[in-house]
């Protein structure tokens, strides 16, 4: 389910999105989506790194991502990240 959100970007983000728009020849909307996705997957990888080292449990990782246990299991499958 897609959700539309309206946000104000600070000067740095505006410049970066304008740069992405030009360099990748994409719309500002697509540039913003790419940026948010990149941030999300970076967060997933950081939490996964903590999980795989035993610093946090799988359930804590799910909670930090706003996911149910099942959804996180599937996400790790999709990203080809092992459970143990």
């Amino acid at each position, binding site marked *: 389910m897609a959700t539309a959100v309206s946000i104000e970007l600070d000067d740095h983000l505006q410049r970066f999105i304008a740069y992405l728009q030009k360099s990748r020849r994409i719309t500002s909307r697509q540039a913003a989506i790419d940026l948010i996705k990149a941030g999300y997957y970076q967060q997933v990888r950081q939490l996964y790194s903590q*999980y*795989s*080292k*035993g*610093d*946090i*449990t*799988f*359930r*804590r990782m799910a*909670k930090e991502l706003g996911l*149910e*246990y*099942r*959804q996180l*299991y*599937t996400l790790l*499958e999709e990203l080809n990240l*092992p*459970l*143990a």
Partner: protein
Amino acid sequence: MQNRKRKISTLFDSGALITSAKFSVRGRLIIDHVVDCCRVNLSPEIKHETIDMGLLFGYQDAQDLAHRLEMRNFLVLNSVARDSALESALTNLGLENADCAVVHTYKHMSNQTKLITDDHRLFIATTRLGLSPIFLPDLILLLVNKAWMNVALASEILEAMQPRYAKGFIELAHKRLKGVI
């Protein structure tokens, strides 16, 4: 001969249960091979995470698990009273509510019961409590050691579950299976 042997008592954590319901060997899910040799117990929280939520999201493995639950292949245990001192210690170790439920349930089970978890943090916490958790691949090795399963089948099961484990993890299990280590 096998039927007279006492099955190994297990308490499954969610990740290990889902993995064992996702992969098949010789036309049967891994969990079916496990049920041949083990009494599979689940806490209510694990049933909720794996079966109830899995059905809600439409996962095939949840349907397979639900079917096996109907067939009484698993036993869902009653919720146990939580010891407040233990609960506090587990929370301080960073365990979440369902993690704690697994530990409390496991503490109430016999010493012979094996907790099957693939969660390193939960593994460490339960080990520090003097309990004996094992990873799912190591359960397969245990079944071979206890003469419940032959080496060939165990090897195929380890191979099948490989996608959910880091490379060295299954490699070590294979080496132990072959007696190299």
